[in-house]
């Protein structure tokens, strides 16, 4: 394939990665920003979202329902269920250990294994597909200059699917929604207040405990939502939470812990570079560069690209 279409194809693939990654990473970033805890089980909430989506979609399909209907119900229900599980985990586990950073890490590692193994025991080791609500292949045209004038042609294999474009659009809408909630609503104000100064928020009568449970649930719900979006492209599998967790951490560190715009920008950077570098060089190089970027950010700008330096 010629260079131009090839680059375009790689960018399209990178954009899908970016869309999913930014949703997942924003969830992680919210939890860290507001609660100051590192949620190692974040990737498993992602996985749980995908597995639930399969369950819901196949239950609806089993009742003779339309696959698109099953997907839409999964899109609504799976994040809610996963969010509730996370909120319960917060109230029953994390609040009991007082959100102590080290113990939270250990506790969420425990959660990670519990969720992963319970999924293996119930759902099994298979990778299972969910049918996309719409999925048409679009052949893309390309312009080349021949005989001194531009000509449109359709390169072989150059195309994408409507569903992939749909994922990008859906992710953008959800991110705008998250921004709106954080910046323009009362619950967003409460979350930001809690993020800025927990004790002061408590003194002003904000039920910090409930805010924490909500944020933890919201973070997990966003991961689950990203997973539901991606599950028609990749299948639901009990080990699928590893990659999103690692990439989310990379993104959150580069973007600045707790900063939403930073997280989205970093997701764009990592997603696109992963798409393009792995096409033209090697996927390993893409990972090396991403990790190197994390190291450089930690050395030269520890608060991340958009983070504010801690005042303490």
């Amino acid at each position, binding site marked *: 394939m010629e260079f131009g279409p090839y680059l375009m194809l790689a960018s399209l693939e990178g954009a899908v990665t970016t869309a999913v990654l930014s949703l997942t990473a924003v969830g992680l970033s919210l939890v860290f920003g507001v609660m100051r805890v590192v949620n190692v089980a974040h990737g498993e909430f992602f996985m749980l979202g995908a597995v639930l989506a399969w369950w819901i979609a*196949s239950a609806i399909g089993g009742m003779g329902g339309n696959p698109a209907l099953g997907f839409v119900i999964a899109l609504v229900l799976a994040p809610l269920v996963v969010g509730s599980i996370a909120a319960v985990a917060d109230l029953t586990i994390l609040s009991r250990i007082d959100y102590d950073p080290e113990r939270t890490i250990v506790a969420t590692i425990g959660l990670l294994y519990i969720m992963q193994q319970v999924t293996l025991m119930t759902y099994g080791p298979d990778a299972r*597909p969910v049918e996309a609500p719409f999925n048409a292949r679009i052949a893309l045209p390309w312009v080349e200059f021949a005989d001194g004038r531009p000509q449109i042609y359709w390169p072989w*294999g150059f*195309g994408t*699917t409507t569903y992939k474009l749909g994922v990008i659009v859906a992710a953008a809408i959800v991110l705008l929604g998250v921004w709106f909630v954080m910046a323009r609503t009362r619950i967003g104000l409460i979350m930001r207040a809690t993020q800025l100064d927990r004790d002061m928020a408590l003194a002003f009568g904000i039920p910090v405990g409930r805010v924490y449970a909500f944020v933890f649930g919201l973070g997990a719900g966003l991961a689950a939502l990203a997973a539901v979006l991606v599950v028609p492209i*990749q*299948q639901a*599998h009990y080990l699928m939470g590893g990659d999103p967790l690692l990439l989310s951490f990379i993104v959150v560190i580069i973007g600045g812990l707790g900063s939403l715009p930073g997280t989205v920008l970093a997701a764009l950077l990592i997603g696109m570079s992963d*798409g393009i570098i792995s096409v033209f060089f090697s996927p*390993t190089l893409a990972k090396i560069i991403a990790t190197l970027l994390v190291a450089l950010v930690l050395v030269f700008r520890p608060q991340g690209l958009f983070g504010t330096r801690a005042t303490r």
Partner: protein
Amino acid sequence: MTKSVKSGAVTTRRGALKTLGIGAGAATLPLWARYADAQSSAPIKIGFQVHRTGIGAAYGRWYDRTTTAAAKMINDNGGINGRMVEIIAEDDGTDPKRGAEVVEKFATQYNCDVGFGTLFSHVVFGSAPRAGELKLPYFVVSEGHHVASGALNRYTLQPGITDVKSQVQAMAPFVASNLGKKVTMIFPDFAFGHDHRDFFTAAIEAQGGQVLEHIAIPPTETSFTRYFPKIPRDTEVIYHVMVGPAVLTFVKELGEFFGPSRPELFGFIDSLEAVDIGSAGLEFLDGTYFWEGNPRYAQENQSEFDKAYRAAVGVDDNGASLSDSKDIATYSHMFGCWETLNIIKRGMEASGYAGPDDRASLIEAVEAMSDMPHSLEHPQGAKRFNGKTHQTFGHQYITRVTDGKLILAHTTSIEDTLYPDEVDYTTQSF
């Protein structure tokens, strides 16, 4: 205080009798323990290294079911040398380091007679040296070429499943004469994929064809579209083989990439093992060809042995579990567990195996085997075992996707799969 005195008083008579009885039993223990070792009562312990977790879990589950069914058949027919077979299954996490530890547990903790069952080649590579050191006969069901290549040791054998080199080599004539001579290969970027790359490239060149491009994909990859632009436009056949949880994504994206104008496709069923051919997005596979180790769908000329084997393991005519039609078997690989257990049985019977001291003679007995006829013990087909290379050879199947089913198109002969020996393990000492 008073309570304990009282209870002590009650147990005095009976307790003393009991203690005596236990003492008497304990006194005879060395006697019957020795008897068990030399004679027939204790079961034969077969350590089963199974990929219960990790990326091999879908295979592990079916290996487990097949092994359980084979052990049941052997036990229902009176066991081995009059002793029952006990399968001691242990998860290796599809991880080489854990695999070596599991082998060690078999040898030292469970006192297994043999180890058995591993599939993924990196786990075999990690475990086989330890099995050799511990002198534990280690029967792998992996299809890797590592046994026949001479990289392992005398204690490691692969008598129940053919290796990649012979499979690949037998495919080349069919591909070249029916599908095309200009091939692009897509394979996972580790030992298993490299075996495909090396052996198929050589085999197709021997048929007058050529490989235009090798596309290696990291085994952990989850998105594939970005690799496909590397496929040269004059490709006539795409040869694909992928493993791991993302196989369905791979095949779907391949279809989306080409749209209506695809070249011929020839795949190893590994790309779709444990995956329903009827899954959404796989319609474009209609008319493409697959290598299968053992045809997943019951064919028109299905043998009575395949029928009985299917029923014993619990697989329906579409290759799915009898209890869940969405639970697709790893049908092209798992027969190896069934056949290997039967070979272990015959080896133990031929060598008069009585205990771990006879391990060397068990291996010699298996090495002495050669032709194995198509039978209930070998439902996949006849086999020819090479005692020198510790590798078996057998028929390979090529099926064509027709109306959402895999229909047999070609069966290779055993001769198609043979290649010159690369090692003679029988010259190594025990």
